[in-house]
């Protein structure tokens, strides 16, 4: 029974990680930009969720579309205003730029919210769902399931819609896409907006699970980059698999060998990279072939 419990924890953890990591991997796939500000976006969304919940008592889950949209607009603005201008200088510069964005956002959040933990506690935050001996905390269940559903929706949209296909075309071959009339600036802005929107949605989901304060962004970005590297930069299915592997690793290690859980988390990444240097689903980039 214990093993089923651990699997359930790992699966739900993986669902949240998958949604969060997909934003990072999508932005990289289309733009070659490593968005190290994703953690700051997440915390930004979570703290504003707290603010609205605290002031008006709104059910936090209702804020999912609102925060998704707002962060999407913010992401779009950051791309148009900054990333687009710096991108020609190479990926190294955009990493530094996004690092700067992350620190600036953290500073702003510190000014607005102070250096204190904020917790969103809707009535169900300590509830759990019991099947036999299996206990599944309700916030984790909601977040894990919504994480998978929303990510599935995004994936389907990217596969099936014209805009999604245009975006993937741009990711595969910018010049070719431009030849058939796909504006690379538009696809790139769109990709950045979706990536940021996943952080908007993810922030709401995190807010009902963990206390948040501005510097928690570091925990999250470290974890997300680990997942994306493991799954392969640029691949959404890779991000999902990476999330599940690391969610499971974390749940198992915390149950059986907690003292070593960090080692297992990063050791797993290291081991997989030894055999698959581009991650599980990562494609070789052009530089490697040349």
């Amino acid at each position: 029974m214990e093993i089923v419990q651990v699997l359930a924890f790992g699966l739900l953890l993986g669902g949240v990680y998958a949604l969060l990591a997909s934003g990072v991997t999508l932005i990289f796939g289309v733009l070659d930009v490593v968005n190290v500000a994703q953690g700051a976006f997440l915390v930004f969304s979570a703290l504003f969720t707290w603010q609205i919940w605290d002031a008006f008592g709104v059910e936090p889950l209702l804020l999912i579309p609102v925060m998704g949209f707002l962060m999407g607009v913010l992401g779009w603005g950051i791309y148009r205003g900054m990333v687009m201008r710096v991108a020609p200088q190479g990926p190294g510069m955009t990493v530094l730029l996004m690092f700067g964005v992350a620190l600036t956002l953290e500073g702003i959040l510190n000014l607005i919210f102070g250096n204190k933990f904020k917790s969103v506690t809707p009535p169900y935050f300590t509830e759990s769902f019991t099947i036999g001996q299996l206990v599944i905390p309700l916030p984790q269940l909601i977040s894990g399931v919504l994480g998978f559903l929303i990510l599935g929706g995004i994936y389907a949209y990217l596969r099936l819609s014209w805009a999604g296909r245009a975006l993937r075309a741009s990711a595969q071959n910018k010049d070719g896409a431009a030849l058939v009339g796909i504006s690379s600036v538009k696809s790139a802005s769109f990709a950045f907006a979706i990536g940021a929107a996943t952080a908007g949605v993810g922030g709401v989901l995190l807010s009902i699970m963990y206390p948040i304060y501005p510097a928690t962004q570091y925990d999250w970005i470290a974890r997300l980059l680990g997942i994306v590297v493991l799954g392969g930069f640029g691949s959404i299915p890779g991000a999902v698999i990476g999330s599940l592997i690391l969610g499971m690793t974390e749940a198992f290690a915390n149950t059986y060998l907690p003292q070593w859980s960090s080692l297992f988390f990063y050791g797993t990444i290291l081991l997989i990279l030894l055999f698959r240097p581009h991650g599980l689903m990562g494609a070789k980039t052009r530089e490697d072939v040349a």
Partner: protein
Amino acid sequence: MNHVHRRLGRRSRVVGLAAALAVAGLVASACSSSDSGSAAASAAPAASSAASEAAAGGDTSAEGPIRIGISLPLTGDFSQPGSEAKKGYEAWASIINANGGLLGRQVELVILDDASSQEQVVTDYNNLISQEKVDLLLGTFSSLLNFPASTVAENNQMVLVAPAGGSPKIFEANPKFYFFAQQATAPNQANPFVNMIAALPDDQKPKTAAYVTQDDPFAAPVIESMQSQLEEMGVKTVYSEVYPPETTNLQPFASKIAAAKPDLIAQGAVFEDGVSLVKSLIQVGYNPSLLFQTSAPSNGSQFTDAIGTGNENGIFYAVSWSEKAPTPGNEEFIAEYQKQNGEGLVPAEDAADAYAAAEVLAAAVEGTGGLDNVALKDWLHANSVETILGQLSWDEIGRPQGDFLLAQWQDGSVEIVAPEGASTNGGNVIVPKPAWQ
């Protein structure tokens, strides 16, 4: 001690981000890495004005004010507790100056910023001693910074009373001039709780216990010491685990602990991990009859909001200071702190610790009737001092010999339940712990 913990947590986050950036840099084939610059920012002397204002009020001593040199992390990682410590020192200076000063002379604080840097703190104290030629020193904040500071003080034979800095590492060098001005070093934080348990009637004593702690230099020793003391008392250990600082989701631990059904759960928690364990225990529906956590419960409403108001009822923790403690001078300190920083503002524990450190130094000066640091050192080794934290005394290497306060959340507020002299409610404890809300 809670801030110390949080800062350590933050450091590991910064390391995490550095690692993350390194990964990102590799992936993006970034060719240059940027060193964000030396942390040793230039530290301009910021002599406290509180003292000089008071001094203008009619100090006629030909010798001028007694100058006390202090380095504090006013910027950088530790700026939050560093700034609180500054407020504590300044509150003390105002009060002592308003009461005629030390040995009839006004007191002037010379405060430098060490930017939370171990290099800068050494420069600062050397500068205070050789350039500023201060008469006395007071310590900086955290073990990390007081460790190098203590070596400077030792080399110059100057007494250094530190408001935070109880790491065993500092005492390994057998310092003669260093004094840690809290009640106890980390391993002894558990004692008041263990004593409380020993005094419980037999039917309330725990028979089994679960111990879980973050791998943190201030949390783990508390829990380890508690475990060995309780095992000696015959309390059977049914679960014992250590987890790394990154762990914020304690659900797997709560499941295992609930399955072991311990009477007592003791956790070496910093903050998020403490919140997560409580929430997870509620979720699995397990309520122990005794629950002790380090640090996390001392965060007031941040803690109660995070676990759901009411769920804190009955949780124990150890702390160095309480705004309600009936210790001498405590009310005066709070009033002065509020006068300087805002009405209704409850001082942080860090401010109170700094205030107490200054009280210790002042007691030694009054006790010896002079500013000879060797005499001050001998006096402190031989005497105990009444402070707002309670009575403090030290062994031959400056380790405090007292006990922390044992606090318990009781019906929405914090009560100090032990030791007897500091109790805010006559020592009433709520055992067994009430049900979750």
